[in-house]
């Protein structure tokens, strides 16, 4: 008796979180540049995960290369330039 009850409770719990997971996965899909171009919503979970990992890695690479360029450019920061930059960023 108790096993049947606990089993049904377990299945309702996983049913709710499955829906929520699907919702998240579809939101993720919309973000990913690769997948957005695909017309249907029939993308496998593993593909979404793969594209998510690839996208995060490419964002990390972007940040790294931008840091490189900034370290070159900001070599001689004089105060007037710094304030101009700050005001540009604040827009």
């Amino acid at each position, binding site marked *: 008796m108790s096993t049947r009850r606990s089993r049904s409770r377990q299945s309702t719990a996983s049913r709710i979180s499955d829906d929520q*997971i699907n919702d998240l996965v579809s939101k993720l899909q919309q973000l990913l540049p690769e997948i957005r171009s695909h017309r249907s919503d029939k993308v496998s979970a593993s593909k979404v*995960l793969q594209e998510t990992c690839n996208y995060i890695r490419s*964002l990390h690479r972007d940040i790294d290369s931008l840091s490189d360029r900034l370290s070159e*450019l900001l070599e001689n920061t004089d105060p007037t330039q710094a304030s101009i930059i700050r005001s540009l960023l604040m827009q």
Partner: protein
Amino acid sequence: MKMHTSSKLRKEFIKKWVKGLQICCSSKKNMDILERKKKIKLCADIALASAKNETTLWSIALISEAKKDDENKILVDNLLGPESRFKPRMTNRQMIACHKRVRSKKILKKSRHVCQKMKKMGPPKSNLAAYIAKKLVKRRTQVLKRLVPGGESMDKFSLIKEALDYILSLRIQVDVMRTLVNANEVLNQSDSKIYN
């Protein structure tokens, strides 16, 4: 609604990043390029995480990870303020021991599961595709766990939710940094025109 929060995050990030750059780039006049790059990147990463104001797991994990490094500690404390509540919960040795314990438990659990599954599995062909698909998802989830700060200790649902937020935040960081690079290049060009 999302646009509003992202512009707020953007402004917070810029404010904290500029503050951090002032702290670390004014201390030594002649840093070598690599050192400056590391500081710029570190300031940006911490500024982004701190701008989240402890509302996400990834940002909390990123900051506690940064605090572990003694070199960075001064900078981080300065950026976050004296009342910063972020304290590394465990020392490195404790974390490694904890991970080893968790991992050996997982291996034991996994081998038990595999044995049970092998007994349940029918003719191998019909289950093979599903089995492979599941393995693929499992493997890629592991990769994602390593990419998202603090991902190792997240359940599947939180991992996806955090990954979403992490991606949105990273995009803001990239966008701001790129804007600064472009602005700098314009300024440097105009400078060279004045002096020529």
